[in-house]
């Protein structure tokens, strides 16, 4: 067996109390393509960040080329020969190919003289090594995406990378470009480079990978030789998150269709051909992998990004939301993903945040009615259990879970008929999480139609009446509550319609 390039043993990492990695172990040998797979939030990105030195592990042990690494940093990992290539190339678009490659290996001070000829020649050599025919003097920004990827690989080789991390490199490549990339990867394998290959395209793995390691809930579930494991087995290893939580799902009477989308699409948002109905009192979960277009879909429905095809009906009436204001007027509410970004306005007081989308009901002849504002803000924050000494404090003073409740209060105050929740419980503590789940049930009981985007399969299964699974910008299937399983959803999300049919 060839030498071990990287050995991670029992690596752990938490962010603000939330465990991203519980116990990840991974081994990479020279001349090996080792796939790393797992659901959204399984801990792949965190693991990569630890290997590249972008974040420090809380516990555990990282060995590179037999040496234990303490206090890893991007500089140290680069010196040890680690290079990462992400889905979106990260070249300097204004610089030439040769310059971009030189950044990888030229050290020297700020006043070192540039030997342009040597630079170009070296760039040519490196590109030859991976069999890429690219003019080294052209601007990186003028190249196609697959070409830029190859330049990145050449740059990594120039930096004498021994460990190459490929993060979904084929996600936006055509079949030809994918085959070309595979040829390059095989060439590198022969040269003894070890590669960590992250992909959601399980069908690629038998073609390109030697071994596969499955992460689930921040834990290494197992490592297999790829040719000994079937796709279905891989999916089974990936799912199986424990359904430890009890979800407060309650049967409520389902009413008429509140929201209906027919062939809905938006070029700007990158979603197409979406057909979906949500009934009053119903919770429809939207599952899918990162990049499947779930948030983009919600944004287009809410009028943030313009929809340009298909039809939207609200209670049977055709509508068109070209601005969030239009949607809000029609009693559609959207709780955005990542409240810290745009769900709440951190500098404003809690009360103003709660009433921000409903100011018209506070406006009287003499301006805003502060008494009524306080009353409503107090009522809604109490109903949602926001823990704060005063509703006049800024939202920035609250914990994540409480901020999310403030964001939700804002939308409840608009008395929505359709409520779109985008990752409503991501990154918040367990207590706040189950409170939000209880609230969703309550709202459904009041006849609100809820569309819930979530990356957490147990949450999707626990809370939804139906589950819409998205893959590459469209809904591939809508599952009824009793036919939805983690395996089924994941298979569809991975784009395996056939597997779903056979199982």
């Amino acid at each position, binding site marked *: 067996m060839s030498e071990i390039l990287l050995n991670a043993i029992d690596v752990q990492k938490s962010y603000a109390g939330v465990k991203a990695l519980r116990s990840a172990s991974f081994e990479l040998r020279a001349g090996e393509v080792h796939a790393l797979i797992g659901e959204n939030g399984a801990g792949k990105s965190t693991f990569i960040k630890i290997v590249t030195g972008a974040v420090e592990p809380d516990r555990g042990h990282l060995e590179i080329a037999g040496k234990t690494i303490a206090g890893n940093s991007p500089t140290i990992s680069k010196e040890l020969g680690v290079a990462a290539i992400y889905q979106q190339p990260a070249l300097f678009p204004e610089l030439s190919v040769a310059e971009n490659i030189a950044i990888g290996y030229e050290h020297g001070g700020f006043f070192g003289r540039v030997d342009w000829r040597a630079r170009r020649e070296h760039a040519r050599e490196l590109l030859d090594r991976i069999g890429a025919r690219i003019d080294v003097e052209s601007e990186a920004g003028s190249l196609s995406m697959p070409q830029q990827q190859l330049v990145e690989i050449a740059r990594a080789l120039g930096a004498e990378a021994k460990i190459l991390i490929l993060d979904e490199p084929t996600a936006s490549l055509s079949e030809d470009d994918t085959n070309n990339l595979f040829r390059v990867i095989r060439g590198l394998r022969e040269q003894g480079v070890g590669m960590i290959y992250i992909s959601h395209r399980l069908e690629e793995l038998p073609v390109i990978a030697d071994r596969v390691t499955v992460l689930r809930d921040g834990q290494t579930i197992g490592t297999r030789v790829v040719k000994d494991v079937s796709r279905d087995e891989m999916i089974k290893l990936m799912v199986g998150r424990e359904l430890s939580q009890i979800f407060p799902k309650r049967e409520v009477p389902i009413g008429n269709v509140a929201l209906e989308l027919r062939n809905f699409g938006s070029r700007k948002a990158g979603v197409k051909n979406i057909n979906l109905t949500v009934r009053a009192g119903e919770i429809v979960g939207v599952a899918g992998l990162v990049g499947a277009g779930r948030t983009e879909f919600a944004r287009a429905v809410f009028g943030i990004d313009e929809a340009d095809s298909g039809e939207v009906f609200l209670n049977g009436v055709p509508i068109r939301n070209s601005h*969030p204001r239009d949607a809000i007027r029609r009693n559609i509410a959207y709780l955005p993903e990542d409240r810290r*970004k745009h769900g709440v306005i951190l*500098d*404003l007081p809690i009360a103003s945040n709660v009433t921000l989308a409903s100011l018209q009901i506070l*406006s009287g002849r003499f301006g805003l009615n502060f008494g009524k504002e306080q009353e409503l803000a107090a009522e809604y924050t109490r109903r949602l259990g926001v823990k704060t000494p005063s509703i006049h404090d800024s939202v920035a003073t609250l914990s994540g879970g409480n901020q999310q409740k403030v964001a939700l209060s804002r939308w409840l105050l608009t008395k929505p008929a359709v409520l779109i929740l985008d990752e409503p419980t991501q990154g918040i503590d367990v207590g706040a999480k189950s409170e939000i789940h209880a609230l969703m049930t309550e709202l459904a009981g009041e006849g609100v139609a809820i569309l819930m985007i979530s990356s957490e399969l147990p949450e999707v299964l626990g809370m939804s009446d139906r589950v819409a699974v998205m893959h590459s910008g469209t809904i591939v299937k809508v599952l009824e509550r009793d036919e939805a399983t983690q395996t089924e959803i994941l298979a569809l999300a991975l784009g395996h319609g056939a597997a779903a049919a056979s199982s």
Partner: protein
Amino acid sequence: MLDFRRNKREISAAVAYLVLLAAVGGVAPSFFGAGNLGDLVINNAPFLLIAIGMTLVILLGEIDISVGSQFAVASVLAGVLAKAGVPVPLLFVAMIMIGTAMGAVNGFLVGRFGLPSIIVTLAMLVAWRDGLRWVTEGAWVQGLPENFQWFGLGQSGGQLVIVAIPLLVFVVFAWALRNLRIGRAIYAVGSDAEAARLAGIEPKSITFGVFALMGGLVGLAALLNAVRFNEIPSNAGIGMELKAVAAVVVGGAAITGGRGKLPGTLVGVALLGTIATALTFVGINPFWEKAIQGLIILAALVGDVVMRKYEERSAEG
């Protein structure tokens, strides 16, 4: 409702102002003579309008450094229109409209195209200033009609108007910023424009409106200022943007937007307006005024950063 915790920036500015007054009074008690204080108020009343507009612009997280040039253009046009026989009441309307139009240019470029306001207004600063220089060839507007000076009300009546209008505007704006939806929207957009958009506010329209409003206030200020003299210089308002930004940040507004109050700006205007005169009384060359304004801006910014750090630490602890 003088809650110290929520108004500490404004209160700090007021305290700084009182210290300045005490210091000047100690060195030169004649500073507090009724004539001098009256002059001080009249001199600075039109400028208060500029500072009010600048407060709104800064609350949005934007900046307008073209106000001085807009002021010069508006001043000259006020004179030209007066000479052409436009009656005084109509002049008010005309100047507000002309100013609004100039502000709307900034608002359109910043709001519609999302261009950085510092660059847009820098370009307009030069464009208005040098355009005016080209048209007037540096000549001042002279031979103003009799009834233009002090609005033909005579000095005491005219003075009253010059002080009363900015104060009235101040009260209206301070009320509106707190009590109207548009005021809330300005704070929301200045804090986080995308979040405001998701809550149904249109940041583009708000930005456009605020810049236009800024221009309208400049037009009004130019008229109120012009009637105090018997000729109108074509180089008025040089350095006014510096003074206005200084007044706003001294008054506690965050240059990054989303935080600030008009009463703080009032204190800032008083402080900035007093400094020039105070320098003369204390015996320092008034040429130091601009340098001091620059230092005041820096001091306010650094003070704000320090205060914020302190707040964060006490919030954690």
